[in-house]
């Protein structure tokens, strides 16, 4: 790293002292300009590019102390090193000068050897400052690029989410609040064939671009695994629960085969038989789905945990069976909902979520969704969520 070029401004109302200092600075290879008082100097310094000021203390219009104070208020990122020429070395004067932003002092009458030593110190400080500024600029550029990539990842993530939809008597709606770091939540509902519909939510561990990219890939893998399991299971006459478990196991194999990140994901996967109303629910380390069998009946958690996807080749998952009746609701959500912390660091919690949902079983699905979204935003007003907040609900009409 080459040292920064020094462009100095000499500020003194004695033209001979100015001429001497400029000649001395030029003999050291500096660019040197001059001003007769603090006010004129300040005008010159607004033109960015000076990094060294040698100023007398006693001057008309604006003295050296006021000039240094004003220099420290100037906008701009680069540092201006200030040396005060002073004949008053009293302690009070030194303290006032340093508080005004003076970096160093040179006593008058000037001794050029001392001045040279002070300038070498200034060169060292300016070289450090220049190196720091260059590092900061590189960091800023890297941060800007990362921010742009996160924005793109977030936009792609949101663009992948399905629109609210209905499949026969089944209606789906959701809320999604992206975290400031880009999380790894994804969810979907899709009809696989005339009889079967898959409905799932997943959360890739960690945050950032890696989690988002894994989420994209996993989303497609899970869809493919669901289609494969339904096709195979239907041909072979498997029960619905076996088909659902097969889908999750196949997805687990695909996920383990492709991932190289050490990340895993949690999943709640439901396979719905639209002819019978039967639901097979597989839970893989995800918060338990909440089920309300009919309007007015409270939501209860379904499932007992299970191993997340991507940890072991054999997860040992089992399916829970539900039979849907008109008015039933099944809610899948990510831990970004229940772990969301308010200003007092209190989590939103499952109990609060269930109470909120229980109070809305008699209302429409969009109203329930709006109530949850409002409660989440009220829980953490004005600040970004630390994790994706995802909740997707199915209702039987």
């Amino acid at each position: 790293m080459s040292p920064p070029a020094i462009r100095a401004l000499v500020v003194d109302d004695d033209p001979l002292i100015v001429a001497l200092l400029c000649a001395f600075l030029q003999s050291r290879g500096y660019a040197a300009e001059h001003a007769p008082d603090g006010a004129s100097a300040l005008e010159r310094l607004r033109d960015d590019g000076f990094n060294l000021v040698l100023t007398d203390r006693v001057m008309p219009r604006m003295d050296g102390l006021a000039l240094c104070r004003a220099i420290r208020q100037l906008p701009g990122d680069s540092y201006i090193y200030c040396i005060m020429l002073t004949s008053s070395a009293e302690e009070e004067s030194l303290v006032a000068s340093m508080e005004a932003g003076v970096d160093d002092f040179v006593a008058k009458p000037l001794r050029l050897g001392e001045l040279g030593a002070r300038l070498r110190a200034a060169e060292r400080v300016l070289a450090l400052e220049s190196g720091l500024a260059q590092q900061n600029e590189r960091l800023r550029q890297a941060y800007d690029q990362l921010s742009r990539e996160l924005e793109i990842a977030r936009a792609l993530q949101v663009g992948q989410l399905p629109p609210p939809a209905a499949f026969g008597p089944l209606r789906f709606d959701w809320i999604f609040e992206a975290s400031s770091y880009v999380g790894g939540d994804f969810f979907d509902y899709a009809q696989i064939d005339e009889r079967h519909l898959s409905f799932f939510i997943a959360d890739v561990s960690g945050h950032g671009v890696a989690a988002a990219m894994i989420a994209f890939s996993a989303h497609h893998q899970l869809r493919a695994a669901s289609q494969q399991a339904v096709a195979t299971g239907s041909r072979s006459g498997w029960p619905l629960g076996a088909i659902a478990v097969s889908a999750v196991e196949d997805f687990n194999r695909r996920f383990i085969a492709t991932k190289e990140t050490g990340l895993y994901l949690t999943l709640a996967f439901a396979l719905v038989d639209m002819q019978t109303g039967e639901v097979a629910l597989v839970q893989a380390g995800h918060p338990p789905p909440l089920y309300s069998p009919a309007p007015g009946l409270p939501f209860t958690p379904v499932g007992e945990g299970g191993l997340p996807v991507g940890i072991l080749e054999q997860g040992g998952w089992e399916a829970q069976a539900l039979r849907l009746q008109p008015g039933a609701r099944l809610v899948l959500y990510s831990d970004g909902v229940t772990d969301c912390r308010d200003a007092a660091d209190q989590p939103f919690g499952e109990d609060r979520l269930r109470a909120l949902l229980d109070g809305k079983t008699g209302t429409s699905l969009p109203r329930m969704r709006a109530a949850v979204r409002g409660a989440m935003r009220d829980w953490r007003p004005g600040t970004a969520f630390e994790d994706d907040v995802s909740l997707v609900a199915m209702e039987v009409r």
Partner: protein
Amino acid sequence: MPDDDFQLAMGRLREEFRQQLPERLELARRQLAACEADPGTAELLEQLYRTVHSLSGASGTFGLAELGIGARSLELDIAALRDRADRGATDFTPLRQGLQELHGLARSAPR
């Protein structure tokens, strides 16, 4: 600017300062007279202070050490008087004597 050029410039500035000395001392004398005529006006005393301050710094810098020390002493006397609100014309008498001494030091300065 190569070092030789700087030494040449330094020599030229030293000579120029010596030539300016009578003019600088005369400026100080006129400013002191103005202060004596109007002791209460702070700005007049401030102008005199700046002139003597410049003379003090430049004298030592350009090789006239004794003149620089004398000017520095006078500068301190002016600063002390500047801090007094009850100045009268007679308070400037010591300054006049100090300025006379500077004239003497300037005349006897080594070439």
